[in-house]
């Protein structure tokens, strides 16, 4: 437990020899935010030990090097910052103690390894840490590897400060920069919730409605020998055949799993304490069958509860943290503009970009080919029509404009609200139709059917395109008869 949690307030330009830094003068107004909430001081000074609050301010202990301490506001502000940070640590995987955070503000090197590890856990693809897939490697990666992953991931997410990229790879320095990076990640989005959701304990039999989770979590990378040399096209044909076979096997296995699930659900009818669920899931039945795994599940559930409570605590108190982070940012020297890095065009990203560009261009061609003759024909017909026509034209234009705007919104916003999204817990219920929460399987089946029809149409269209293109290329060579295989 840290003895005192002290902060600098009005820095009178006192050089700090022991830390080898000159602190910038920071105006008190920016540091102490008089917020409306109870954490009014912005935890400029928060004392860890409430009992010590009654003491007069005095010269601080050696660890704080003669900094003058402000008298703290009595009340809830005492210890608010360490508490908030402790809550944050409990929520994060591998969260360090509040003392580490305090040291990081002063850029102490001993705080760096813990923060590197924390950022690595937070940023690394969840396949290495997630509950569903076992970690690919037996032991955690080396410090250098962790540092590299953290740097590259932060850069690709657009972390604005270059100082991070210049930190040494042995993970011995840069704790303040890492603290800023963590705060940046926290500020940008619901990081904690996302982390919690990814490692959520799954109590029910879940079925993902859309593939976004499966795509975002690709599973452990399989070590693969790259085929360097040229391959014959028969190899590709073989791979395609293998893929088709795998899918068929997958579908069969899935059917069996559904049958088993149906049985388990019906055999345990009425056993669940929650009436809306009605029956046990596989995880719950397993809990009853095998005590060991039941214990594990219970432990995981309880530790998740601890984390959730910590997250809620954090939510209530995070304002204090942000005010403190402002001070941390204030202690950093401003960055000089750096020479730019060597550009690197990632191959994978380029491939993706190429595909989309090609698709859009094809689409544009087709649209032009469809629209231009129609426009010409229309102009020819309508050329001499009177002014009453123009009002009608205007109305049509507006209507079409609205439709197209709606269409644009559909992808710009992601359209997440429209489609059912995320994993669903399967519940077998005879009572079927109306009332009660939850989706009905029949509805989802309808949606999936229409989506299937759509995709089949797209695939057919692509194949037709290929056929035409090949016919065109083959037609260049006379003297051959092409006999197409019997159609489907």
């Amino acid at each position, binding site marked *: 437990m840290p003895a005192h949690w002290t902060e600098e307030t009005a820095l009178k330009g006192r050089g700090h020899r022991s830390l080898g830094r000159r602190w910038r003068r920071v105006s008190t107004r920016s540091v102490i935010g008089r917020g409306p909430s109870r954490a009014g001081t912005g935890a400029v000074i928060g004392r860890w030990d409430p009992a010590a609050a009654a003491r007069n301010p005095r010269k601080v202990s050696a660890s704080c090097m003669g900094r003058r301490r402000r008298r703290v506001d009595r009340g809830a502000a005492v210890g608010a910052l360490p508490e908030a940070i402790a809550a944050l640590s409990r929520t994060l*995987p591998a969260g360090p103690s509040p003392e580490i955070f305090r040291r990081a503000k002063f850029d102490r090197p001993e705080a760096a390894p813990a923060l590197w590890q924390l950022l690595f856990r937070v940023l690394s693809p969840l396949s290495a840490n997630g509950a569903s897939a076992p970690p690919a490697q037996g032991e955690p990666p080396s410090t250098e590897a962790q540092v590299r992953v953290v740097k590259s991931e932060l850069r690709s997410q657009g972390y604005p400060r270059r100082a991070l990229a210049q930190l040494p790879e042995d993970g011995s320095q840069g704790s303040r920069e890492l603290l800023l990076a963590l705060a940046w990640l926290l500020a940008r989005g619901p990081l904690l919730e996302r982390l919690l959701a990814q490692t959520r304990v799954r109590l029910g039999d879940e079925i993902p409605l859309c593939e976004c989770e499966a795509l975002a979590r690709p599973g452990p990378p399989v070590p693969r020998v790259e085929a360097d040399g040229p391959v014959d096209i028969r190899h590709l044909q073989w791979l*395609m055949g293998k893929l088709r076979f795998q899918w068929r096997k997958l579908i069969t296995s899935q059917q069996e799993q559904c049958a088993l699930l149906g049985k388990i659900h019906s055999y345990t009818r009425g056993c669940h304490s929650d009436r809306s669920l009605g029956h046990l899931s596989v995880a719950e039945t397993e809990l009853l069958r095998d005590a060991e795994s039941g214990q594990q599940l219970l432990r995981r559930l309880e530790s998740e509860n601890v984390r959730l409570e910590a997250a809620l605590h954090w939510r209530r108190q995070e304002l204090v943290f942000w005010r403190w982070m402002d001070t941390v*940012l204030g202690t950093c020297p401003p960055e000089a503009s750096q020479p730019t890095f060597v550009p690197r065009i990632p191959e994978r990203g380029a491939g993706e970009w190429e595909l989309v560009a090609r698709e*859009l261009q094809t689409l544009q061609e087709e649209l032009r080919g469809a629209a231009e003759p129609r426009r010409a024909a229309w102009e020819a017909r309508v050329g001499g029509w009177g002014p009453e026509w123009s009002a009608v034209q205007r109305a049509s234009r507006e209507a079409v404009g609205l439709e197209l705007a709606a269409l644009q919104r559909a992808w710009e916003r992601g359209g997440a609200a429209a489609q059912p999204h995320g994993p669903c817990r399967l519940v077998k219920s005879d009572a079927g139709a109306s009332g009660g929460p939850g989706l009905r399987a029949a509805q989802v089946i309808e949606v999936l059917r229409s989506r299937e029809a759509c995709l089949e149409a797209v695939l057919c269209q692509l194949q037709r395109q290929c056929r035409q293109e*090949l016919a065109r290329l083959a037609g260049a060579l006379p003297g051959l008869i092409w006999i197409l295989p019997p159609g489907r």
Partner: protein
Amino acid sequence: MLPADCSRRLVAELRDALDACAERQRQLERSLRVSRRLLRTWEPAETSAPQPTPAPETSGEAPSPESTPSPQDLKELELLTQALEKAVRVRKGMSKTGERHKALSLKSGSAAASATTASAPSRASGQASCRVSETKPPRGIQQTVVPARGLPECRLLSVGDRTRMERGSRATKPGPGPRDQQIPPSAALQAPEAFTLKEKGILLRLPMAYRKAASRNSRLWAQLSSTQTSDSMDAAATAKTQFLQKMQMTSSGPGSGLSAAAVEAEVGLLRTACSLLRRRMEEMLSADPADCMQEYRCLLTLEGLQAITEQCLHRLQELRAAVVGQQLGPWPVGRCPGASLPCGGGTDPIWSPQLLLYSSTQELQTLEALRLRVAMLDQQIHLEKVLMAELLPLVGTQGPHWLALCRAVHSLLCEGGERFLTVLRDEPAD
């Protein structure tokens, strides 16, 4: 033979697809194993046999017991301590309806007792007194499979009889650990009735500890998702945006605010846009305009779609320039390109899952089959596009073995690799 770089790319894509499929299969196999085991007869000997470590814990805070192969004594000592604690608790809060710790598992009655005699006396006295005052539910024996720690109460009902219960009350010790090595074969004879889910599944009840934890869990998740949208978050949200702005100002990094991740997300959106635009175009082209108005609207729509497509292309060029010119850093790892997601990639974390009600196994099977089919079609479409991009140019340039290549490409691209066409040489009849 295909050129080297083309081969590399195509093989990589196909292998990615195979890996994704294999990953699904692995997960499915795991679930199948568990489900099959549940539907067989439940044998405690099986459960207490030393098992390979199941899927590891996600949180580092709870070390799994399998990772610490403690010697017998340590384990017994630990169990003894817990049992004593539990006994104190039980005596304090004794109630008729409360679940208590029961004896051993179905088959290993006295065997386990002999293994753990150290704790037996204290537990036995506690148990016996509880037992006496307890009114037996009409259904009979309550025996549990009692684990090492925490002792969830679980009542499995078997064809009950008092004798077994008596035996159970004397031999109190939980502990799958000691049980591991010590179940004699004779134990199997003690309980002729095996437990199958089919016959007795309906009698299962979840342990109280689990129920409490699960309800607390769902309550906390609900609270967490609701605090996301409350007004008290505004102050924190303002503080956060201010912090981000300050960060941006004090740094010398890319000023445009674009990052590789953001670019990738936008490219994904544009991909979705393309498919939506195309779908609308096909609707327009396939509809027969009934009158002038509809014709006009069709024309306007097509022209509007064209304009939007040009905007998208323009945006794509901008993104490309950003990637090249501003050194946005490495592409984010571990993203699978391919499917155009109807839900737009879902950046929102997923809270507690909602319920999906199905009424029969056939319905569930249909649902799953459709889901897999949609995923498969997504993958096929992506592969089709990639193959088209790589292979059609090759066919365009006539090289050696052009006919064979043409035939193979046709089968891959136009028939999904399932059928082949035949090429005949049209010799003039002499």
